[in-house]
């Protein structure tokens, strides 16, 4: 007779940011948690195929381009002819290993059990884990967190072979830099890889039906990206869609577009969305099914339609950021054990690690017009800041969006290096309902890029004074502007 299945308070399936944080939170609440991971090591796509590896390559590309920009003609910088992707990624293994080690140490410290294998529901509370060799072990779970992440979507008309036609899971397996690369898609992953390879000297062509890439961004910010991309010798072909993709059997991937033109390149990267990893989970045995978008539907606390089953991270859809996924994992576990949750802010910044970096939080100009009927927008060009000049960041732009009266901060958008860090000042302003004048009245370090907030705020104050010489109705009278 086989032994009764081991029982856990929580079984977490998947060890990416959402799963790892869920398991960690369960352990901190004194619960017995089991973390199941199908890959050999924990961390999920974020650590092994996505965020961490791509950002490591980006750092290498960025170091090269910014060194060139900052040193002017002092050094004649030319990439070695034999530059290979692998050599740019020398730090990647080290970075990935360190991150993985840190995550493993946390699990060990919290005494969280882990299991290598693929999980599936046998019934709503019974989870079976299949090892690589095919052996199965069953576990009883009082609660389950599904955090299995996502994988690249492969449209049927794009023959991804991971050799000539790659996706975001296989692009970093390349050992040499392609001379040319076609990127299908205009989302975050597409734009990030396109700009990294462009910065490394590959001739990149981005193709998408959208007139400009990163459609969810403020257009001015997206335009900064496009200008920088074109300056690197690459191009964005908007308003077009691939009609056929074919490797010619010799040396070229031929992409026929729906306007009759074609793009020829050494390699192609397909970045046309991601799909949730739900295959093999046998969700129906738990009484669950994917929604029409192939995702799991959850409530505000990440609870699915089956009360003891939660889902977090990419399997529940946007924003699909590592940061928000981790918070969802924590929230799910706190909720299942009745822990009172603080008021989580829905002010989540988006960081896009293109070259240059892009970031935004809160409302864009367009969203503000729709939501509150108008706005005042302050702009600060990095090229006008002392720090921007010193660091040769001529292209940077910070946009501060305020209410129509020019008082309350509604959103911030930034393009330029350090954008993903700088945005947090704007995020705090939004969370605390700060006023534009706060950026003017307080002293910032000099020279810094954060001064862009002050410059943009001053821009708004000047517009406000022009629009409301007698002061904004219902607001304090404007004090005279000091020296900026």
């Amino acid at each position, binding site marked *: 007779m086989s032994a009764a299945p081991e029982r856990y308070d929580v079984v977490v399936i998947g060890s990416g940011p959402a799963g790892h944080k869920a398991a960690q939170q369960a352990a901190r609440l004194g619960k017995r948690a089991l973390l199941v991971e*199908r*890959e*050999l090591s924990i961390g999920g796509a974020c650590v092994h*195929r996505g965020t961490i590896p791509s950002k490591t390559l980006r750092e290498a590309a960025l170091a090269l381009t910014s060194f060139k920009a900052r040193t002017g003609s002092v050094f004649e910088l030319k990439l070695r*002819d*034999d*530059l*290979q992707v*692998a050599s740019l990624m020398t730090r990647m293994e080290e970075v990935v290993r360190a991150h993985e080690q840190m995550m493993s140490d946390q699990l060990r410290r919290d005494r969280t059990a882990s299991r290598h294998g*693929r999980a599936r529901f046998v019934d709503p509370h019974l989870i079976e884990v*299949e090892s*690589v*060799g*095919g052996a199965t072990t069953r576990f009883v779970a009082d609660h389950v967190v599904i955090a299995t992440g996502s994988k690249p979507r492969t449209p049927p008309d794009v023959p991804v*072979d*991971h*050799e*000539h036609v790659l996706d975001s*899971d*296989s692009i970093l*397996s*390349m*050992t*040499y830099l392609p*001379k040319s690369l076609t990127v299908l898609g205009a989302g975050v992953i597409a734009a990030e890889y396109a700009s990294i390879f462009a910065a490394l000297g590959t001739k990149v062509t981005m193709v998408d039906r959208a007139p400009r890439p990163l459609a969810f961004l403020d257009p001015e910010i997206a335009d900064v990206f496009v200008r920088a991309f074109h300056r690197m010798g690459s191009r964005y072909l908007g308003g077009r869609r691939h009609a056929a993709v074919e490797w010619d*059997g*010799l*040396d*070229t991937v031929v992409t026929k577009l729906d306007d009759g033109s074609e793009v020829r390149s*050494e390699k192609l990267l397909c970045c046309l969305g991601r799909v949730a990893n739900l295959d093999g989970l046998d969700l129906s045995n738990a009484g669950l099914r994917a929604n029409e978008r192939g995702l799991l539907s959850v409530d505000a606390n990440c609870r699915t339609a089956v009360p003891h089953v939660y889902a977090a991270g990419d399997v529940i859809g946007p924003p699909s950021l590592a940061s928000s996924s981790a918070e969802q994992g924590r929230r799910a576990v706190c909720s299942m054990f009745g822990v009172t949750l603080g008021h989580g802010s829905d002010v989540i910044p988006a960081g896009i690690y293109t070259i240059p970096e892009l970031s935004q939080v809160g409302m864009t100009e367009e969203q503000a017009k729709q939501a509150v009927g108008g706005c005042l927008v302050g702009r600060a060009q990095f090229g006008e800041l002392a720090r921007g000049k010193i660091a040769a960041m001529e292209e940077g732009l910070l946009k501060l969006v305020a209410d129509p009266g020019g008082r309350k901060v509604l959103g911030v958008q930034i393009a330029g290096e350090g954008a993903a860090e700088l945005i947090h000042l704007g995020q705090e302003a939004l969370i605390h309902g700060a006023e534009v004048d706060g950026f003017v009245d307080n002293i910032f370090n000099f020279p810094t890029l954060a001064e862009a907030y002050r410059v943009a705020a001053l821009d708004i104050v000047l517009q406000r004074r022009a629009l409301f010489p007698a002061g904004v109705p219902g607001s304090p009278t404007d004090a005279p502007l000091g020296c900026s």
Partner: protein
Amino acid sequence: MPQASRIESVAETVARFRERFLEKIAEGAFELPMLPEVASMVMAATQDEACDARRLSRMIHRDAALAGHVLKLANSPLYAPTVPIVSLQQAVSRLGMKKIREMALVAACQAKVFRVPGQDARVHQIFRHSVATAAYAQEIARMRRWNVEEAFLCGLLHDAGKPVLLQLLVEVGRELDLGVDASLVEDVVDEMHGSVAGRLVEGWRLPARVAETIVYHHRPHEAPSAAQTAMLTGIADDLAHFALQSRPVTEDELRAHPLLVPLNLYRDELEALIARKDLVKAAAEAVG
């Protein structure tokens, strides 16, 4: 001659043969011989102005010796590539078919042509096995999202040491004026083919990982930095033997293969590889 003396004499001859064979290996002047029919096909194809570039590219991808010679030439000062050529695909796309055609012709003309009396079947089997291993290595790399071109190359070249050693055997036989009996040095060929191929490839300016994979494909856990590709090539090697039945490997043995866990190949993925048996066999047999 009395029986005992005759045995002693045979033993001495064998010992002398083995000694000289080992000396030749230690000298390290290896050459990768080409099958005569491949050399003829390449010559015919390259001299035909209408030669389809794709056909020539396919020929290079299907013959370990031709592939090796092309890569060696591609990285040689003669062609002085602006970037090191690390894969066959890269060679084709970077150097262009005009140069590739030229290199194939040079390889076909310059390479030693295989003539190992009595070993023809074995030599052909080695070449077929290399193609099958390359095909499986490529598939596993696709599953794992590892570099497909590199996996293919490692599979194609992993046994390149065997024809080199068999050719050496002929030379020793000729030198000592003795007939060639490969069974006399079978153990040496088995044991040393990896390191011989590794030394051969080292001179071609391929990534160090490729040479290391070839050296360690039978003991991948010992590979200092290329354990992953060595494991991949190791299991592809066994899958290829299974597909071609060039060595008795059963499905059950594959299901219990010790490299499945470190490669994270689940049962269904292995079954998918096993199911490709006929496709791989057909590709290998197309070699001749």
